[in-house]
């Protein structure tokens, strides 16, 4: 868990960053997300590493971002 001030990912780099995080850390689950002050907050989980990953995307279209995450993780 980071618990630090997170870097906001620009919307046009979102999928690129997401794919890298998923691949490098064997992320297999999407714990949840919500629209926050600076865009959309996502909480991902890797059961292999027993670790959570936090991302903040600088875009407020929460539904669209969530559905792209689910698609990437084949949920």
């Amino acid at each position, binding site marked *: 868990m980071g*618990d630090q001030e997170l870097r906001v990912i620009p919307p046009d780099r979102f999928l690129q960053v997401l794919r890298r995080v998923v691949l490098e850390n064997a992320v297999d689950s999407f714990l949840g997300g919500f629209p*926050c002050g600076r865009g959309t*907050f996502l909480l991902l*989980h890797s059961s292999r590493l027993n670790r*959570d990953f936090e991302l903040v995307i600088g875009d407020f279209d929460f539904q669209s971002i969530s559905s792209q995450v689910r698609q990437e993780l084949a949920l």
Partner: protein
Amino acid sequence: MIEISRMDYTGDFVKSFRLKRGLEIRPLWKKMERMDPDSLLIWAERFDSISPVAAGLSVAMALEKSAKFQVSLSNQYSRTIAAEINRLVWLVNYLGNSLKSISPEFCVSAAFLLREKVFATQEELFGGRVLVQSTKLGGLRRGFALGDLQKIRNFVEQWRAQWREWRSLVDNDPARVSRFSGVMVVPPALVQKYSWWGIVGKSSGVAYDSRLHRPYGAYPHVDFEVPMGKNGDAETRFQVALLEVELSLTLIEKLLAGFPQASLHEVKEVKLNPGFYTGWAESGSGPFVSVLEVGADCMVHSVRIFSSDQRALPLLEKMLVGVRADDFWLALNSLGVSLENGELS
């Protein structure tokens, strides 16, 4: 609580059904924005009325990280005892509802009587019967006095005697076992994919439990193992829930035995630091993971609590298609999913 608005059958099997919408729509998140930390903790418990302590504790942990506040060891012990007492509510409620699915008479009222006894103890110790409101920043709203520790010992002893009597009636009852066996098997791959932790995960061979895997509170100071099964059916979930009750009682006893000398650690003033903070606590249905967003004005801008229920709820309308109509309520209730803290589209 789960309600169905429509159900269609093909012969003896469920063809389709629709969960009742509306119960899951709650204005809680909006309400909690920009609240002061103490009020926030009281409201956080409303996230799940069966597991309010876990909900409050997960948010308290996130707030304490933001305030860079270290909770004293004795307060960690007190909170962990409160959380384990409260876990008994979810567990006996789950066991009672599972039995109710096959017969309204079969030891159901005795299960709910056990639940009532936990409610009475919570009221006596913390002031709140159902919504316990025990957690405050840095500890418990009402810290334990020496007499309270003895009260808890007495509660465990008496409650366990009644529990064992009840358990002996249901544990190996052949009619019950035959009804529960093989119903609603959840494969481990589905558990991993949706992080469907708690009773469901443990019964399918995924023994994820935040008390062990994300150590917090006083759990790192006690030795324990979480129960696990592998068949993933309603019977395995029932057996795991029975073992979870035994584990909670044992944990309370161990925590009481190792309870440290009280050290005063009152929180006078809290200043939150901007950023995102997470906290977690194990409920019967798995860990609640809280996320707080604290803005540059040092106020809480957003709060969310994520649960296994939220992730599993959208799956139910597909998962239960093809289940025997006679087994429908058992299949559904054996998953222990609550509509209360879920989200449906």
